[in-house]
Every structure is written in structure tokens, then in C-alpha cells.
């Protein structure tokens, strides 16, 4: 037990640095996935059939390919096409794109849950379709999407570990390197698991608080 403690004290700085990168990676990928996801959702609700088709094609394509393969595509295949991305950026783009389709489904569900009659109330005071979307559907739809959004965000945090495969020294990768060099697999992976939990539990709690606060308004 005392060995576990001394190992923990010794490993923690490396693992915490990894956790820091995991969190930054998650937040960047999250922002990317939200921006793209709202795009796909809005395109999917468009009156323009071509835009709807593109959105559907993107969602089904991206959803049908494992995330690890998508990361490899961004990191290993794009350079062949002349696009050479640093690992972190490749991770943000790969995870952000992979998760954008789940976010799109979250937002689509949320926007769809907004009562059409509220939109009519906006139109009846002279709002354009765009203004009614911005002032009514967007705020109420995002609120309705929040529970599934929180779920997706926690999944993204965990799946950011896949970025370890493209040399990003996030928590999982940092741990793997430690385990390989020290042979202390047990200690290292228990610590990694605890650190992921330590990050995801507060995240889930934060989303729940947000939900409650918005529900009151």
C-alpha cells in the first residue's frame, strides 16, 4: 500500500499534465462539435432539399465510421493530400467532426421539440423566419437538447482517450508511456480511471445544474 502511495506521488505530475491536455482537447473538440452540429441540424431542417441531403449524407457517413479510423484519416491520410496537421489539431478536428453528428441529432431533437405555435406567435408580430429561429427556436431548442447534450459531452471526454493513438500526450497516452517504462500497470491504470472519473462526474453535475437553472426560467 505504501508503495502505491509513493508511486502515486511520483506519477501524479505526469498524469495531471496528461489530464490537462485531455481537458483542453475535450473542450476544443466540444466547441468544434457544437458549431458543426448546429450547422448540420440547421441544414437538416432547411427548406432546400440539397442542403438537407448534404446534412443527411454527412451525418450517416461520419456516424458509420469508427472514431479511431476517422482520427487516422485526419492524421495519416490528409498529409497524403498535402494537408499536414499537428497531432493536437488533428485530434480536435477528428473528434470534433466525429461528435458533430451526435450533437446534430441532439440539436435536431431539441429544435423539433419547440412548439410550432410559439414560432407562429413570433411570425404574427412580424418576425422573419430567421429572426423567429434565432429568438425562439434556438434558445428553447438548445434548452430542450441539454440533457442529451450533457450525455454526449461526457462521452466525448472519455473518447478523447482515442487521441492517444495519434501521439497526443493526453491522459491515456501519458499513462501508457508511464506503464511501459515502470511496469506498474496496475497503479497507473487505476489512477487513469480515477482521473477520468474525477473529470466526468463534475461535468455531469454541471450539466444537471444548468438544466435545473434553465428549467426555472
Amino acid at each position: 500500500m505504501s508503495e502505491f502511495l509513493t508511486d502515486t506521488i511520483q506519477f501524479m505530475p505526469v498524469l495531471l499534465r496528461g489530464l490537462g491536455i485531455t481537458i483542453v482537447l475535450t473542450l476544443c473538440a466540444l466547441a468544434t462539435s457544437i458549431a458543426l452540429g448546429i450547422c448540420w441540424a440547421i441544414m437538416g431542417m432547411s427548406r432546400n432539399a440539397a442542403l438537407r441531403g448534404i446534412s443527411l449524407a454527412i451525418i450517416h457517413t461520419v456516424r458509420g465510421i469508427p472514431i479511431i479510423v476517422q482520427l487516422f484519416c485526419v492524421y495519416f491520410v490528409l498529409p497524403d493530400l498535402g494537408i499536414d496537421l499537428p497531432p493536437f489539431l488533428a485530434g480536435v478536428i477528428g473528434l470534433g467532426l466525429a461528435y458533430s453528428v451526435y450533437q446534430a441529432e441532439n440539436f435536431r431533437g431539441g429544435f423539433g421539440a419547440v412548439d410550432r405555435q410559439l414560432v407562429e406567435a413570433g411570425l404574427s408580430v412580424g418576425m422573419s423566419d430567421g429572426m423567429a429561429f434565432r429568438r425562439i427556436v434556438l434558445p428553447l431548442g438548445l434548452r430542450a437538447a441539454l440533457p442529451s447534450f450533457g450525455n454526449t459531452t461526457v462521452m466525448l471526454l472519455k473518447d478523447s482517450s482515442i487521441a492517444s493513438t495519434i501521439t497526443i500526450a493526453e491522459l491515456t497516452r501519458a499513462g501508457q508511456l508511464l506503464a511501459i517504462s515502470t511496469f506498474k500497470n496496475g497503479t497507473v491504470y487505476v489512477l487513469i480511471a480515477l482521473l477520468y472519473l474525477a473529470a466526468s462526474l463534475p461535468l455531469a453535475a454541471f450539466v444537471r445544474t444548468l438544466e435545473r437553472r434553465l428549467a426555472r426560467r
Partner: protein
Amino acid sequence: MIRLDGVTKRFGDKVILRGIDFTVPQGQVACLIGPSGSGKSTVLRAINGLERHDGGVIEVGGLPVTDANLSAIRRKVAMVFQRFNLLPHRTVLENVIEGPVHVLREPRDAAEAHAMTLLARVGLEDRASALPSELSGGQQQRVGIARALAMRPQAILFDEPTSALDPERVGEVLQVMRSLAESGMTMIVVTHEIAFAREVGDRAIFMADGVVVEDGPAREVLTAPRAPRTQQFLDRVLNPL
């Protein structure tokens, strides 16, 4: 003020309106009555373009209702909905100033001052900072009327404004509507409140199966209807047993 000439509308192969003609002059309170499915609400929604009519002409203040004119039309005629349709994430005051501030681009403080006088007019000035969910149905509908008035409309369309209310709450809304009528507002009211239509309405238009069956002074149409279909409807509504 509002003129309909041969207005037709179909949903798929179901014909809803088979040629509706009537003209509501400024200051008139016209009540649209008739059985469910007769097309009353569709007429109302076609006037402010929430439904596009297929044939005929609708004019509001001389301006034909077309896609190009929708925004101008909707600034002239406000609408009050059966289910209030207040924005649940905004306070009473914010609901009332939404159109004036964001559509009419009124300065916020002027819009708020105007909104407060309107809320006082419907008896809700002390609930300005409440959320719709904290109000009774009757109160929410009075906010709906204040929201309509905030646009300084030339006419207001009421789509069964009391049908979703507790029976006890109907009176407070009808009273606000009566005072509006007395102030000279042009109103078209789709309603099942025969007593209101008789007392407050200048005119009653009875619709069934997509046509106007009878159209005349409210007291006459509702106390001594001429058309058999109107007589049958009123008899069933007034003597349900």
C-alpha cells in the same frame, strides 16, 4: 379594413374554404362562429398569412396578403391565440416588448413604458416580471392581448381566445376584449362564446363546411337566425341537453 373575396384553401385533397367573401370595416367587431372544421380558424390564419390561401384575394388596409407583403401585414394585424403562445423563457414584460423592440425597433425603455401601460390596461401591471408558467390561463391570455396591443395594430384577430381556459377564467378575458371593442378596435373573433358574440359583436358571420352560411348584425343572426344550418347549430350550442 379587411376584405376577403372568393378566398379558397385546401389541404391536400381536403377543401377547407370554398370561396369566402366578407369585408370588415374599421372599428367593427366581427365574430366568426360555426362548428369545428368549418374553416373559421383557417380564415383567421389566412388573413395574417400563417396559412397561404390558394385562391381569391385578401386585403388588409388596401394591401393584398402575399408573401412579399407578409411582414407589413403582420405589423398591421396582431393575433391572439387559443393557447396563448407566450414565450416560456421570457417574463411577461419581455413577451410584450418582444415585437416592438425586435421587429419595430422601438427603443427598449419606450417599449417597456408602453408595455407597462398595456399591462395596466389588462390588469397585470404587478405581474410584469413573472414568467408565463407562474400565471393562470386567464392571466396568460391577458398578456397575449397586451402583446398584440404592443404592436399598435390596426386590427386584432382572436383565434378562440377563451377555449383553453377554465370556465371561471373566461370572464376576465372577455371583459378585456369588451373594453377593447368599446375603444373602437377592429376585431375579428373566432369564438364559441355565443353570449359574447351577441353582446359585444357588431356582426356575426356563421360558417359551415368552408362557406359563409349567414352574415349579419350579431343580435339578429344569433337570436333569430334565418338559415336552417345556423338555427341547428345555435340550438345545439344553447341547448346541449
